[in-house]
């Protein structure tokens, strides 16, 4: 399978705090990779480095084999315009949706298409409608975000990212701010995307989603990948003590089968 994203020796530190300590990852087309780890393990930072919401302190990131940025005197240099173009090709969905409250749902989904991709009004609207249809919210096109439920808002945010025709989608704890009963509709939308062949990197605490949808699960601990593999293996037969503790913490109050 063709490689879409390659991450080499990714480091990120904030002031003196080393959050990522050398991460390597290759993401193939159509793969769904779930990143697990306790808070502070660096999984969100890693995700945010992929589309340069955070600029890596060291390491290289390739999209379709092309190195992002240019190297000068052993240091990576990134031009803002290059990063803006890159971000149109890597969609991102956030924990807190970050919809634009002064725009209707449809305008939210059209905004990037109009201002960044310079698509025509007609084309952007058609595309927006199609993506809203895809996430099951065609009937909400003319509402303002404030009138939607959390789950609906998050699905609009997904449609907004999809409308840019990205090569990869990043999901950063997208169900963590939702009422439990709304989590399902968002996960269902994500599973649908995975089944349609979208390449996805997902940071989540939903082990069930990881188990049923992911092709590969990564477990991050202390800024490094501690375990990775197929979900059945990593989630059911973890090799490390740290991973076992993590899983035990999650199943402490599970309903009996």
């Amino acid at each position, binding site marked *: 399978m063709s490689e879409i994203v390659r991450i080499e020796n990714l480091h990120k530190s904030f002031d003196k705090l080393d959050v990522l300590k050398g991460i390597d990852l290759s993401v193939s087309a159509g793969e769904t990779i779930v990143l697990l780890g306790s808070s502070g393990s660096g999984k969100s930072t890693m995700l945010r480095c992929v*589309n340069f*919401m955070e600029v890596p302190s060291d390491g290289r990131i390739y999209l379709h084999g092309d190195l992002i940025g240019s190297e000068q005197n052993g240091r990576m240099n990134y031009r*803002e*315009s290059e990063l*803006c*173009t*890159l*971000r*149109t090709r890597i*969609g*991102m969905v*956030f924990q*807190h*949706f*970050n*919809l*634009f*409250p*002064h*725009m209707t749902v449809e305008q939210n989904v059209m*905004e*990037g298409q109009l*201002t*960044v*991709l310079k698509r025509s009004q007609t084309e952007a609207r058609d595309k927006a409608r199609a993506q809203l249809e895809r996430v099951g919210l065609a009937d909400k096109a003319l509402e*303002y*975000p*404030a009138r939607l439920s*959390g789950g609906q*808002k998050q699905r609009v*945010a997904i449609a*907004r*990212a999809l409308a*840019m025709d990205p090569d990869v989608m990043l999901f950063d704890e997208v169900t963590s*701010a939702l009422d439990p009963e709304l989590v399902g509709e968002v996960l269902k939308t994500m599973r649908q995307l995975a089944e349609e062949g979208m390449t996805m990197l997902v940071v989540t605490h939903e082990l069930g989603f990881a188990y049923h949808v992911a092709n590969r699960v990564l477990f991050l601990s202390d800024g490094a990948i501690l375990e990775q593999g197929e979900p059945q293996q990593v989630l059911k037969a973890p090799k490390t003590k740290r991973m076992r503790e993590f899983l035990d913490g999650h199943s402490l109050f599970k309903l009996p089968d």
Partner: protein
Amino acid sequence: MVEWDFLAVFADFDLLMTGLLNTLKVTGLALLFGVPLGLAFALMRLSTNRPLSMIAAFIIEFFRTTPPLVQLFWFFFALPILIDVRMTPFIAAVVTFSIQSSAFFAEIFRGGIQSIDKGQWEGAKAIGMSYSQSMKRIILPQAVKRMIPAFMERSIELLKTTTLVSTVAYADLMFQANDLAQKTFRPLEVYTVVAVMYFVLIFVFSQLSIAVERRLARSGESTVH
């Protein structure tokens, strides 16, 4: 016992109306130049370019901390000596109050911009929008909405401060009132009428602002829940 006699005032009421018009002219022009200039100062102030930001900060602080009367006198009397230009009272008034109010508007803009949740920047950035695109399309439209009460407040303050221009012989409402009071020997009535005129003007203006605020409040609120 004081005897009120408004007849003399109303006989020359057109004098006051001329003054009112001139007051509105100075205020209007100061707003016209002051608001965009204030936005420019705010954007400079927020810029990551240190020197640019510090220049803006200095200008803003300077004009916020010096008395407007001193600024007016400086532009009217001192500036013509430095650069060989003839300042009319009108130009001096417009220049002074444009810059003076821009300093305050800059702080209002800055406050408005900074009050917007950083998630909005992230949402815009994630779909490939540049800093300026995000500012123009996402941040400012929301910030301006929040700024309206402070903006109106400041505009009213500006309208009142323009009474200072009478000291450089610009025929604003206050200047015309002084003129009329001396002519008619009726200061009590003249200044009472002038006070009422200012009151009506500002009252109408602030009612208008409340209406605008209500209209704007209708669409959209928080992005989080």
